[in-house]
């Protein structure tokens, strides 16, 4: 056991760091893109403040298309775009772009669902008080949707962790890659078990953190 830890800790540690890097950076950009996208799709819905059929349907189409492409295909499909954007298609840098493109529409969709759950009566009450739409979005809709948004982000993060497993294909490393390389290709099953164990702990941790945070914000 001790020998195993001695041998593998640096390698596994390195992979954990890579996974965290990929998840945190991609999540950051995915939120940056996904949240406004989600808000936009809610606002352009028929009957909403900025109702616009064309924009709404284009957004819907775009989100559906991206969401229907498996990550592994997306990864290769957008190689030229990745290259154009970050100048490389390999390493952590190279995988961030596809991860963001994979996750942002998912976040937009989850956010849309959360925002639509907000009691329309409350929004109407604020409108009746003469409050600006922009302020209603920030201070009423997003606020009331917080518990549900946190749960959505938790789901998105877990799915993002899953996607990083494929990052090894472009040499970005991470836990998934480690399990694949050593566990599968070299039959070092212990490494695979250890990696899987770490992934389980990670996902569990994130999920219960999300649940707890959502429960704390939810007041009913």
């Amino acid at each position, binding site marked *: 056991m001790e020998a195993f830890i001695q041998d593998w800790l640096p390698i596994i540690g390195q992979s954990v760091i890579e996974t965290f890097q990929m998840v945190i950076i991609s999540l950051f950009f995915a939120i940056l893109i996904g949240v406004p996208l989600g808000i936009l799709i809610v606002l352009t819905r028929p009957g909403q403040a900025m109702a616009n059929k064309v924009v709404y349907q284009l957004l819907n189409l775009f989100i559906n298309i991206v969401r229907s492409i498996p990550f592994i295909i997306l990864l290769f499909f957008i190689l030229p775009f990745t290259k154009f954007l970050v100048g490389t298609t390999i390493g952590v840098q190279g995988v961030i772009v596809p991860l963001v493109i994979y996750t942002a529409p998912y976040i937009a969709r989850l956010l849309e669902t959360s925002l639509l759950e907000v009691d329309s009566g409350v929004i*109407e009450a604020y*409108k009746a*008080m*003469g*409050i*600006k739409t922009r302020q209603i979005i920030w201070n*009423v809709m997003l606020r*009331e949707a*917080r518990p549900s948004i946190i749960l959505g982000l938790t789901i998105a993060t877990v799915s993002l962790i899953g996607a990083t497993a494929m990052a090894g294909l472009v040499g970005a490393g991470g836990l998934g890659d480690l399990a694949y390389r050593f566990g599968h290709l070299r039959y070092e099953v212990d490494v695979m078990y250890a990696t899987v164990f770490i992934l389980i702990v990670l996902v569990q941790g994130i999920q219960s953190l999300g649940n707890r945070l959502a429960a704390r914000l939810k*007041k009913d």
Partner: protein
Amino acid sequence: MIKLEGITKTFPSKNGNVTAVNNVNLHVKKGEIHGVIGYSGAGKSTLIRLVNLLEKPTSGSVSIKGTELTSLTPEKLRQTRQKMGMIFQHFNLMKTATVYDNIATPLKLLGYDKHEVKKRVEKYLKIVDLFEKQKSYPSELSGGQKQRVAIARALSQEPEILLSDEATSALDPETTNSILDLLLKINEELGITILLITHEMNVIQKICDYVYVLENGEIIEESSSIELFTNPRKQTTKKFLDTISQRKLSASLISQLKLNGTVTRLTFIGENTGQPLLAQVSQKFGVEPNILTANIMELKNGIVGNLVIHLVGEAEQINASLQFLNNQGVTTVEVEGE
């Protein structure tokens, strides 16, 4: 204060257009409480939402304090709305905010400074008697308390007009009464003009000066509430009145009683319960009045008594008695049997 003229609202729908509100005229003077009563689907919610332009009228004009709303810019409309509070059947509070924040948030968004926000929140929480609950969340409050928070939220903007969309419909009778008392207090002490809609006759009875009966989007009857309670003209109005008094006797009983004499409904205004008059009638005309049902309703602006009597005697004497009662200011209406 509030003036609707020729207001019509048509919704497009799959099977043709639905006219929810049809050519409605309505005028609420400063300091008065007006009520619109109607059954479900009559168009009440649509009507009240037209007043602050949450719903844009298909045609007609909405004017508040002499300003025509339909032609205002969005910015000006928002400013006008700030002077009109609104409360709702389901309270419409933010679930994730405390009582304090539910009132403070709109004030902050409207640009009041911290100090002013705190001052107002505290002032209006005291007025609605919920000062102690400011740290609670809506889920920890009863329906009546939630409505009080909503009322405080509306008042905190110091509006001149309060619109109420079935504010008591989700509440039990006792809580309804306490909310109605609060609305009366707001009206009397703060001088706020109120337009409310309801399907409950007791709401009209308790706090309204003037009533509109809405049916299929049209106002079919309107008058001061005293007039409406003493002299309802339309069938729908009578049906609403039946909901708050046991006005109804079975048709077969009435027919049976009519075999000797008449069955008549007497309506009085004022303290006069009619008892002395009936004694006089009995003495003067030798008829024998039996009281079948009796009730007294306290309206906002007076008391209305209702008696259904069985008058036994000669036809001529009965007629003379009714004539006499009419002359004394009592409305008499024969009650139909089978």
